[in-house]
């Protein structure tokens, strides 16, 4: 009997040491997991920075940011990023012209007008729209939207900013709709009731009470949408073309920063060439643009948030 108890105590003790070990090892393991996310950021920044610096030892910085010709191939390459930036901004502006009105109107409808029944049907559909892979949107822009637009604009080239930008906008509608709706649903009902009691119509409640109260969330959803449009890759590389042109003409073929990166990696630019390093410089510019937009969006939703 006595032996048994001793063994039991021993077992308990060894269990305890195992227990204290896992008790300490578990948080350490989880900490390591979360450090990986920091490593990913450091990896992105360092990768872009190092290769971009190599790029700038070959191409002067001033030429890069003020040059108006982007022609990285052939004998006489020229690395002025402005055409790529203008292409990106053109796509972004077209996308926002589509996404902001439709996204905001959908949000207002879902939050202020729609019955519970309608909301239950429409919200999942918008989620499906948000989940469609961008390559599918690109295919749709190229094989359906462009031919459709060509009916109205007869000299529209196959690759153009208009159809790519429009579809990028469609892609962003669900995002703006759902984020704006979240912001509007968090406006307390007492404010709506107050306005209705004063004799406002539904529309006046929506536009003069709810939208202003939720404005910080709404604006920050717009900014996030802009960031998505800037970083969108597949739609533009399928449908917008690959001719970097400094233009504001939406019917022209253009190239975005993301489109350029895809073009180069597909063309298999050999490691070590200036063209190879240029994708990192372009990637860096892209990263800075989207980072700025994301920080701006966070700042807006924090700084102007109204608490109820």
């Amino acid at each position, binding site marked *: 009997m006595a032996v048994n108890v001793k063994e039991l105590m021993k077992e308990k003790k060894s269990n305890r040491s195992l227990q204290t070990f896992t008790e300490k090892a578990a948080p350490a393991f989880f*900490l390591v997991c979360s450090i990986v996310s920091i490593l990913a950021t450091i990896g992105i920044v360092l990768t*872009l920075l190092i290769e971009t610096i190599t790029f700038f030892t070959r191409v002067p910085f001033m030429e890069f940011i003020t040059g108006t010709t982007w022609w990285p191939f052939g004998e006489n390459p020229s690395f002025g990023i402005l055409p790529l930036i203008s292409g990106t901004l053109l796509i972004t502006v077209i996308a926002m012209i589509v996404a902001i009105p439709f996204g905001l*109107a*959908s949000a207002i409808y879902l939050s202020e007008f729609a019955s519970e029944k309608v909301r239950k049907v429409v919200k999942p*559909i918008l989620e499906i729209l948000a989940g469609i892979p961008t*390559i599918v949107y690109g295919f749709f822009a190229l094989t359906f939207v462009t031919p459709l637009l060509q009916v109205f604009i007869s000299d529209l080239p196959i690759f153009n900013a208009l159809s790519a930008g429009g579809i990028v906008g469609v892609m962003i509608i669900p995002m703006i709709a759902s984020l704006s709706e979240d912001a509007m649903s968090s406006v307390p009902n007492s404010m709506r009731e107050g306005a209705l009691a004063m004799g406002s119509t539904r529309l006046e409640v929506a536009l003069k009470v709810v939208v202003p109260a939720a404005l910080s969330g709404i604006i920050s959803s717009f900014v996030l949408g802009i960031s998505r449009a800037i970083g969108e*890759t597949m739609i533009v590389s399928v449908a917008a073309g690959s001719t970097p042109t400094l233009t504001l003409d939406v019917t022209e073929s253009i190239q975005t920063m993301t489109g350029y990166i895809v073009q180069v990696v597909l063309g298999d630019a050999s490691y070590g060439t200036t063209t190879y390093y240029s*994708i990192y410089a372009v990637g860096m510019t892209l990263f800075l643009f989207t980072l700025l937009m994301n920080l701006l969006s966070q700042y807006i939703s924090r700084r102007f948030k109204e608490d109820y």
Partner: protein
Amino acid sequence: MNLIDKQLVQNKMNNRIIKSRIMRTVFFLATSFGIAVLAVLLYRVFSQGLPYLDWQFLTNFASRFPEEAGIKAAIFGTLWVMAVTAPVSIVLGVGTAIYLEEYAKENKFTRFIRMNISNLAGVPSVVFGLLGLTVFVRLLEMGRSVMAGGLTMSLLIMPIIVVAAQEAIRSIPQNQYEASYAMGATKWQTVRRVILPAAIPGMLTGSILALSRAIGETAPLLTIGAMSFVAYVPGSIRDSFTVLPIQIYNWTGRPQEEFHIIASAGIIVLLVALILMNSIAVFIRNKFSKRY
């Protein structure tokens, strides 16, 4: 004496009500626009690609001839990449979420991790591709392999899983913790036997949704150099590969109409896979999520 002109008030009121009704219709039409685009897109893809979709399409390799082209390599490539991405991203994502919710003290370092994750979620996917190209393909010499592609994807979807897992943990009420501690359980025992079981449905739903995003991603894998013409099934994680979206991209880029039709067929397969995954996620959420 009548101070209020009833007619005038009535008119003004009517105008406002009519305006409200008109705008309601306008908002409704705007909402329908997104749905209409989705309907046209689905109709277009299915009517074009469905006749081509048969067993041969699923079991043939890519080909120069549209009538012989298939997606066998792409399907297996996608499965291989997911076999790397799923475990890595779920372990990292759930681990990070548990750390942030259960163990992290509220200090600068924790705030930094939080801010970092929300910024990472906003980085364009093509930039993740550049990271993968430099670090996994070149620096760690993995080549353009399944491994490199899977790890790149893991980093891309990790932030999504973290956020979903955090929400799942946060929805567990405080009394569950208190009951566990009151029974003499340690922190780790509480996490493992109370928190994790209760949070798993939410974590699983979020992970499946994140993986369905990864299946449709094209840009990062294009950037690390996944090939578009592969005529074999990858045999190990060191092999080169292609995935479904890249195959679709390749066919979309060709001028011949026939290739657009098989691109449609490929898109149908991709969309069916996504809808299947989303249904599973919704099913898990409805079936297993507890209400406290």
